[in-house]
């Protein structure tokens, strides 16, 4: 495991987000449809990155709960766009072997005959490497 500072840098780099621009208004969390599912809330992602607590972020369930609906990206008044941070934290996880949120074994029972390919493709992208 790299140092926390390095990981924070990596998240900033992957996401392209400058967390220093945040003014802590909370509009991201006010807009988030997955807010209640998340243990670390969208606005907290920004301050966790600032405080370089990446450990908590990669272990949070929030990274699997984000829908990538871009409501926080659209409405952020400071151009911080926390959704990109959440996705970057998820990337850090799926890029490590064996960290998939979706296991091949569990797929068959999740399927039904009407599932569009698009759903499977998207879910693979979001949950697996």
């Amino acid at each position: 495991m790299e140092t926390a500072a390095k990981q924070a840098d990596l998240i900033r780099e992957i996401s392209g987000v400058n967390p220093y621009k945040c003014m802590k208004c909370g509009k991201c969390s006010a807009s988030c449809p997955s807010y209640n599912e998340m243990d670390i809330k969208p606005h907290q992602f920004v301050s966790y990155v600032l405080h370089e607590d990446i450990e908590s972020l990669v272990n949070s369930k929030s990274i699997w709960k984000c829908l990538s609906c871009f409501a926080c990206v659209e409405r952020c008044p400071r151009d911080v766009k926390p959704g990109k941070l959440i996705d970057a934290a998820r990337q850090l996880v799926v890029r490590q072997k064996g960290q998939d949120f979706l296991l091949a074994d569990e797929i068959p029972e999740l399927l039904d005959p009407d599932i569009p390919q698009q759903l499977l493709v998207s879910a693979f992208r979001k949950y697996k490497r």
Partner: protein
Amino acid sequence: MQRIGVFVCHCGSNIAATVDVKKVVELIKLEPGVVHAEDYQYMCSEAGQEKIAVAIREKGLTGIVVCSCSPRMHEATFRKAAEKAGINPYMVEIANIREQCSWIHKDMEEATKKAVILARAAVAKVNLNAPLKPGESLVTKRALVIGGGIAGIQTALDIADAGYEVDIVEKTPSIGGRMSQLDKTFPTLDCSACILTPKMVDAAAHEKINIYTYSEVEKVSGFVGDFTVDIRKKARYVDMDKCTGCGVCQEKCPSKKAPSEFNRGLNKRSAIYTPFAQAIPNVPVIDADYCVKLKTGKCGLCEKVCQAGAIDYTQKDEIITQKYGAIVVATGFDVIKLDKYDEYAYSQSKDVITSLELERIMNAAGPTKGHLERLSDGKAPKNIVFIQCVGSRCSDNRGKSYCSKICCMYTAKHAMLIRDKYPDVNVTVFYIDVRTPGKNFDEFYRRAVEEYGVNYIKGQVGKVLPQPDGQLLVQGVDLIDNKQIKMEADMVVLAAAIEPESSVRKIATMLTASIDTNNFLTEAHPKLRPVESPTAGVFLSGVCQGPKDIPETVAQAGAAAVKVVGLLAKDKLLTNPCTAKPDELLCNGCSTCANVCPYGAISYEDKLINDHGIRETRRVASVNSALCQGCGACTVACPSGCMDLQGFSNRQIIAEVDAICR
């Protein structure tokens, strides 16, 4: 050869901490023409200036270079000091080693090297300086105030009380401005009209004040002390001298579909109208876009009912040309358009309103006669949500980067007034920060919380979702409880950002006054000259310079007035001697320079020229130094290179270039 003295300022540690001033002194002594160099803690202090005077006397200096802060700070100071000590003030040049050196560089060696180069450039320039003598121009003892809101009214009153003539130009039919639209004012809850109307009346009654309403500034020329301004007096279609202000025409007018500007479009007004009951002047105007008579030729009802015979459908716009010594911009503000904030459903629901609209709803003369009710169905609201910072403090491309300053306070005011008058209404305020720096401001806000039970929630609203039953579902966040909130409201009030009135850009361009990226007018110095524009003779009053509340606006209005009075009290002004000057021997009379001159300062005359013994009459350029502002456009345009700018001559600038590239 000049005898130049160089004075290097430490500016306390501002310069000396990054620039090795002793080294600068030591190296600059080696420059040609430099006969004296020294450093001192504060060159601008009296002791510092005395050092310059002593050196001038003892070393017979003919030119001075001061290495210090920006010439925009202290050039005038050092010129005065030199003049007092007996040399021409234009023999002084400044090397800016603070703003453009010590403050932006960290490495001492590098900064010192640069400081020496800047000093050398200044020395090279002074070597070629020539004494200049400013001309004189007369001051027109009359001021123009653009904008008739509280800022403009106060400025005009203060100037007029000092005994000078003032004209107010206001583009709407009445003076009063935004303040006249407010119901109550913070932090004392005074009725806005009660404190504004007497001032409006004073202004109208003042023998030194002349008010042009329904008028706009169309053209400005000239310069400090001597501006010439064209004012367009728009056709009112009502004779101001005959009208008695009885109001019958407005009652009888059959066209009542125009949105009322005064009530922010929340209700309608007639085509012939005065914006509000206390309007000054109390003379209506006819809105040509809605008047049936002006559009179709039929109707004419107002003319028939007017007993004074004041209606005149044939009136035309009129241009008034007037001379002024000083101009004050007091154009004020408007709230931003909310089309980029549709997540708050402003355009989708009538019950989502701006604070200024709430101001009209709360006002007894407003569209609901002061009853707090929903605009959609007229029902009394039970739950009201206020959303702060709508479009303020946004660094995305949707809103404004600045804090609008007044919203925290007016929202506390609204919340308090509603809770006071309607104790069963729940009021919730979503805020990012509550900013209350001002006398009795924080106490005011705390009263809203502690005595009136207003529910302040730290957090923003993400979206307002109108429901089929007419309720508004407000989805926000409480950052203290760390909870997402969904609450129903009957009304949502948006604290929309304020921005400079849209016409200000046009006015600033006419005045050649600088304007920032947010369309606020720039002040000559952000701290020390906050009511003056960098353009001489142009002054700033009110929100056109930056967001302000009423007390601040009134204070600035007074300050601007003092500056105007200080200017008008002078009979004559010294003109800038850095004007263009042709070399008649080289001029071939081609007129190129006259064509590029924005001031019409260049004319041609037939003159007897002695060209190395050959005497002949030639057509040569002649610069009127009273008109020339010294931009230098002509100097570059001149094909024969005969035109030069005094104080910034070709040779001087080239000497600077050479010194920098050496």
